C-alpha cells in the first residue's frame, strides 16, 4: 500500500459552513506545512459535505468512504449528531475515527476507535467556574443553546459553580434554529446577576454579543463569561469595542504566543488569507498532526488496532500548547486558558492571562 486515504466529513454548506471551512483549512495547513508523505506513504484526503445536522447522510457518506473509497481513517465531524452516526460506521468498518470538532463530552464513548483532537465542553468551562468564584462573581445567569454541547456546558459549569458555593439565578436554553436572544437577555438584565454565562455555537455569536451590549447589560454592571466559542476568533475582530473585557475560557486562542502557533497561522494564511484560524481550525490541524505522528510511529501501518494502540498516549506541542491523548478515554488532554478580549495592534484578540494545565475532560 502506497497511499493512506483520509475521509474528511464536514459541513460545507448550510448553517454550519464556517465550522467545516475552518477545520478543512486547518487540516490542509498541516499538510502544506509537513508535506503529503509520512513513513513512505502518500497522504490523500477526500472531502465530503454532510450539510450540518443530517446524521443519516453522514452515515451514508462514511460508509461510502469506507467501502468504495477504501479510506483508512475517518475524520472531521462538525457536530455531535453526525459524530454519533459516524461512530457506528467506524465500529462496524473498523476504522480509526478522528473527531476534529464535535465537542459533546460523550462523543468519544460511542466507539472504541474514536480519537478526539478538539475539546469537550465540560473541559472548557469547569476552569471558568473556578476563576469566576475566585473573582467576585457570585450570581450567574446561565444561557445556552439548546443542543448537546450547550446542555453539556450548562451542566458542567453550573455544577462546578454551585459546588463552589455560588448561585445560578436562572438558566435558559435558546433554540438552535433561528435564535432570538432579546427576551432571554432582557430576563437576565431584570434578574441583575453578577455575570451571564453563555454558550453559543460559533457562527451565531456575533448577533448574541451585539444584542448583549445593545440591550445595555454591560452598563448595568453585568459581566459576560463563557467558553471561548462566544468570542470566536473568526468573528471577534469585526465586533467592535463593545466586546472588550469579555472573559472566556478555552483551549486555543489565535493570540497564543508560541512558535508553533506562529507557524500554524502562517500556513493557514497561505490557504485562506482572509480568515483568522479559530479553535475549529486548530482541531483540524491537530487531527492531521495526530494522524501523521501515529503513522510515523507505526511505520505507515493504518489498520485499526495498530493505529489505535500507537495513538493512545501520544503527545505533542500543538499551536494551543502541550497536548496529549488520554489512553483511557482517547480524548484530548490540554491546557485550558482564561482569556480576556483586548485590543492589540489595532485588532481584537482573546488574550490569555491565566490557565489550568493538562486538564482532562472532567465529565469522564
Amino acid at each position, binding site marked *: 500500500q502506497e497511499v493512506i486515504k483520509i475521509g474528511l466529513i464536514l459541513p460545507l454548506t448550510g448553517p454550519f459552513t464556517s465550522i467545516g471551512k475552518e477545520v478543512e483549512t486547518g487540516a490542509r495547513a498541516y499538510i502544506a506545512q509537513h508535506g503529503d508523505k509520512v513513513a513512505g506513504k502518500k497522504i490523500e484526503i477526500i472531502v465530503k*459535505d454532510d450539510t450540518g445536522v443530517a*446524521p443519516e447522510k453522514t452515515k451514508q457518506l462514511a460508509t461510502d468512504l469506507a467501502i*468504495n473509497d477504501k479510506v483508512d481513517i475517518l475524520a472531521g465531524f462538525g457536530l455531535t449528531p453526525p459524530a454519533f452516526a459516524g461512530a457506528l460506521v467506524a465500529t462496524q468498518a473498523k476504522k480509526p475515527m478522528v473527531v476534529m470538532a464535535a465537542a459533546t463530552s460523550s462523543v468519544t464513548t460511542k466507539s472504541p476507535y474514536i480519537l478526539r483532537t478538539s475539546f469537550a465542553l465540560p473541559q472548557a468551562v469547569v476552569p471558568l467556574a473556578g476563576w469566576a468564584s475566585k473573582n467576585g462573581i457570585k450570581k450567574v445567569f446561565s444561557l445556552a443553546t439548546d443542543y448537546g454541547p450547550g446542555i453539556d456546558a450548562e451542566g458542567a459549569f453550573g455544577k462546578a459553580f454551585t459546588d463552589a458555593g455560588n448561585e445560578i439565578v436562572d438558566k435558559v436554553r435558546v433554540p438552535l434554529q433561528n435564535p432570538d436572544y432579546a427576551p432571554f437577555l432582557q430576563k437576565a438584565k431584570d434578574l441583575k446577576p453578577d455575570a451571564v454565562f453563555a454558550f453559543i455555537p460559533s457562527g451565531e455569536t456575533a448577533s448574541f454579543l451585539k444584542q448583549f451590549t445593545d440591550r445595555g447589560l454591560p452598563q448595568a454592571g453585568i459581566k459576560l463569561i463563557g467558553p471561548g466559542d462566544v468570542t470566536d476568533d473568526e468573528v471577534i475582530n469585526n465586533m467592535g469595542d463593545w466586546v472588550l473585557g469579555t472573559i472566556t475560557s478555552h483551549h486555543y486562542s489565535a493570540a497564543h504566543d508560541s512558535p508553533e502557533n506562529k507557524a500554524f497561522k502562517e500556513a493557514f494564511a497561505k490557504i485562506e488569507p482572509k480568515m483568522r484560524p479559530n479553535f475549529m481550525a486548530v482541531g483540524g490541524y491537530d487531527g492531521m498532526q495526530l494522524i501523521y505522528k501515529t503513522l510515523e510511529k507505526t511505520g505507515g501501518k493504518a489498520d485499526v488496532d495498530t493505529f489505535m494502540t500507537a495513538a493512545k498516549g501520544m503527545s505533542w506541542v500543538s499551536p494551543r500548547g502541550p497536548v496529549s491523548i488520554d489512553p483511557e478515554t482517547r480524548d484530548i488532554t490540554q491546557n485550558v486558558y482564561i482569556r480576556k478580549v483586548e485590543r492589540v495592534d489595532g485588532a481584537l484578540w482573546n488574550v490569555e492571562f491565566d490557565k489550568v494545565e493538562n486538564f482532562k475532560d472532567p465529565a469522564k
Partner: protein
Amino acid sequence: MSDAFSLPFKRLKPMSDPTDPKAHILNATRPRWPEALVWVIALSAFFLFPTQMPLLSQIAITGLFAVSLDLILGFAGIVSLGHAAFFGLGAYTAGLLGKHGWHEPISGLLLSGLLAGAVGTATSFLVLRGTDLTRIMVTVGVAAVLHEMANKMTWLTGGSDGLTEVVIAPIFGIWEFDIFGTVAYAYSLAVLAILMFLARRLIQAPLGLTLRGLRDNPTRLLAIGSPVKRRLIVVYTVSAAYAGIAGALLAQTTQFVSLDVLAFNRSAEVLLMVVLGGSGYLYGGLIGAVVLMVANRLLSDLTPEYWQFWIGGMFVILMLFARGGLLGLGKQVMERRR
C-alpha cells in the same frame, strides 16, 4: 386523458382502439413498459452498483416517502410542507422499539405505520379546510411542534444527540443488516415494491377516481353526493402510514434516529422531489428522489461547497422549460412524437 389510468406516462389520444370510447378506461390497468423498466433497473442495481447499496437504500426509502406525499398532493390536491411529521413518527417508533427490546423488523415496520397513520387520522381535520397556503402552514406548524417535542423529550428520544443503540434482528431471522447495505437495500426495495403495488391498485380503483375528482373540484364532488371530508381523512391516513413506514425503514436500516427526521428541510426536500419528478403519476416522486439524490451526490463530490448552485440551476431550468416535472416533460415528448 386521465392521469392515473395510463401509468406511468400519460397519453393524449385514446390508446389501442380509438373507435372504442371506453378503451381508455378499460386498458388503464395494463402494465406498460416504462413501469416495468423502473423495476428492472432497481433490481439490476444489485449487480451494476454493488458498492452503492447504502445510497440506493436511502433512495428507495426517500422514494417511498415521496410516493406517500404524492398520494395526498397529486391525487387529492393537499399541499403539505410538514410531511416529515409522519416520517419522523415512524422513525422514532421503529427506533424506540428496536432500542427497547422489540428487535423484529417487520412487525416494527407495521407498528410504526399504524402509529403514524393514527396520528394522520387525528390531525387530518386540520387540513380539511383552507387554501394551499393555509394547509402548507398548518402542516409546517404540526411538524415543527413535533420536532420541538422530540427535542425536549431527551429522556425518550435522546434529544438533539439522536437515538442510538437501535438493535434490529435479522429479517425472518435469516438476513442480517450488513455494512455493505445489501440486505438493507433488498429490504427497502421489497417494502417499496409492495406498497407501490397497493398504492397503484388504490388509485386505479374507484377510490382513486374519487381522489382525482377531489383534487380537481371538491365543490362538484360534494354535489354528486360524496362525503368529501371522509375521503380526505382516508387518503391522509394512508399517506401518513406510508410516510411512517418510510421513516421506520430509515431507522431500521441505519440503526439510528436523529432529530432531523422531523426537520423542515426533510419535508421541503420531499416536496421538491415530487414536483421535480411530476406529481400525480405515483412514479414521479420515485423518479424525483432518484434524480435529486444522485445529482446531490455527484455534484457534492465534484464541488463540496457549491453544489447547491447547480442543483438550484437544475430546478430553475427545468421549471422554465418543462412544466409538470420530469414525467410531465416525458409526456410532452411522447406527445410530440405522435
